């Protein structure tokens, strides 16, 4: 089933030149998608379009076949419940004035989801391997990796169908990155993931399908296995070649 469809989508900030042009994209339930590109390729703008935070300059974006209309409050409530996000910087994505329970519970309260909030927060924290007592603390009492887990707990507390993650591990050290990748892998059993990253190696670990973006255009898309084994576009080839590898000392 198609969750979100982008059809001939273009986007420009103000009257500037388009940062995205002619984007056709389909996000299917159960198929994790990786959107890969370098800085300035437009991948974060795609994420903002997918989240309904900005409207396309032209083209259509639909959720389950219906166009995303920010003015339709009841539609947006259903959309927000189904589509959540995790952001790059675990330090600026958590409100320093709020306790973890309030941070994680925000989607439940804002979307008026009828549930036992404390129990749902405890369950979400447990899903990201954080203890129940973390709920009463403030963000500054946690490490970067733990903060990213809290951000993931907030994203999954409303049991969304789709979680969009923007450079979710790029601000973390290697050991913590591995833990977050493992956590996302476990979560992807119940939720479709869209990972936006410059790191093709990271998204290939979790995604069945890849989209390669260069300067606002999709230059290649398809199954991750095919793209990794036989990249067709020179830009994709360069991205793969630039993936860091341990030097061969033999």
């Amino acid at each position, binding site marked *: 089933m198609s969750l979100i469809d982008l059809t001939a989508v273009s986007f420009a900030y103000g009257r500037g030149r388009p940062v995205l042009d002619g984007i056709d994209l389909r996000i299917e339930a159960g198929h994790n998608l990786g959107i890969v590109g370098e800085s300035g390729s437009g991948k974060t703008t795609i994420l903002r379009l997918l989240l309904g935070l900005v409207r396309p300059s032209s083209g259509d974006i639909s959720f389950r076949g219906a166009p995303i209309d920010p003015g339709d409050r009841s539609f947006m409530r259903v959309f927000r419940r189904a*589509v959540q996000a995790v952001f790059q910087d675990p330090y600026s*994505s958590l409100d*320093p*004035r*709020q306790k973890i329970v309030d941070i994680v519970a925000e989607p439940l309260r804002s979307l008026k989801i009828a549930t036992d909030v404390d129990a749902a927060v405890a369950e979400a924290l447990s899903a990201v391997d954080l203890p129940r007592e973390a709920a009463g603390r403030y963000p500054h009492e946690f490490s970067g*990796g*733990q903060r990213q*887990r809290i951000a993931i707990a907030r994203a999954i507390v409303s049991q969304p169908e789709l979680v969009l993650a923007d450079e979710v591990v790029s601000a973390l050290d290697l050991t913590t990155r591995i833990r977050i990748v493992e956590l996302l892998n476990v979560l992807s059993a119940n939720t479709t993931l869209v990972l936006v990253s410059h790191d093709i190696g990271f998204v290939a670990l979790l995604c069945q399908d890849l989209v390669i973006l260069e300067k606002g255009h999709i230059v290649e898309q398809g199954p991750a296995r095919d793209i990794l084994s036989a990249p067709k576009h020179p830009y994709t080839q360069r991205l793969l070649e630039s993936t860091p590898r341990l030097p061969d000392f033999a």
Partner: protein
Amino acid sequence: MTDTTPVLAPPTSMRVTPTFLIGATLVGLHIVVGLLTLVWTPYDPTAMTGGRLAPPSLAHWAGTDRLGRDLFTEIMVGARIALSVGIGAVTIAASIGVTLGLLAAFASRTVDDVLAATLDILIAFPTLLLAMLIVAASDGASLGTAIFAIGIASSSIVARLTRILARRVLAMDYITAARVSGTSWLGIVRIHVLPNIWPTLIVNFALQFGLAVIAEASLSYLGLGAPPPNASWGRLLQEAQATVYTAPFGAIAPGIALVSLVIGLNLFADGLRDVADPTRRRR
């Protein structure tokens, strides 16, 4: 694999600093004295109760003024007037300033530019000068007019600060996360923006409170504040000016009252910031 980084111990106490205690004590003392004057004063503040310009004595702790009124009683009543002006002016400045600042922060770039330029022009006028203009344009000097004038004059500073702080908060990822979570703009203001800018604003309010007290004293000194028989500290200072060499306590006593309240407010403001900020709490 479980993240083995230990969850840090929770904060155990608020950071109550010595400066906060000193500030709270000074401000508290003025509040107690101001409230006390509602039910009791040593003498009738308008009655001649002793000789003119009498020095401090057991009967008149701060001496008497040029009309023989008890200075200590007048200073006590002056505390109530100073606190009334501070509370009134800061309430007006906060209501108008925070609202305008938030509107500017959320507004489109064009509206924001217009508001920011207007605020810049208003800030270029000294608070006292602006207050004098407003009082001069009104029917006449009164306590209410002074409060209104000082509040209006201070609101541009509060608005400018609120706009800057709110824009900084609105740029954070947790605001985007709140939007994705379905939180409305009003909810974002209530849940995220105000709590994050509050500690800085409260410090500014306390400073504005002190400035309002000084501004009222200055207006009264110039004859534009609370009219007689209101025992404003500024009026007491103005009346003592002519006799400052022969009866200096007439100027020293209200001066000490004024300075101690303003210093107390400044120290209290610093302490409030620490108490209001969970990231500054002691482990």
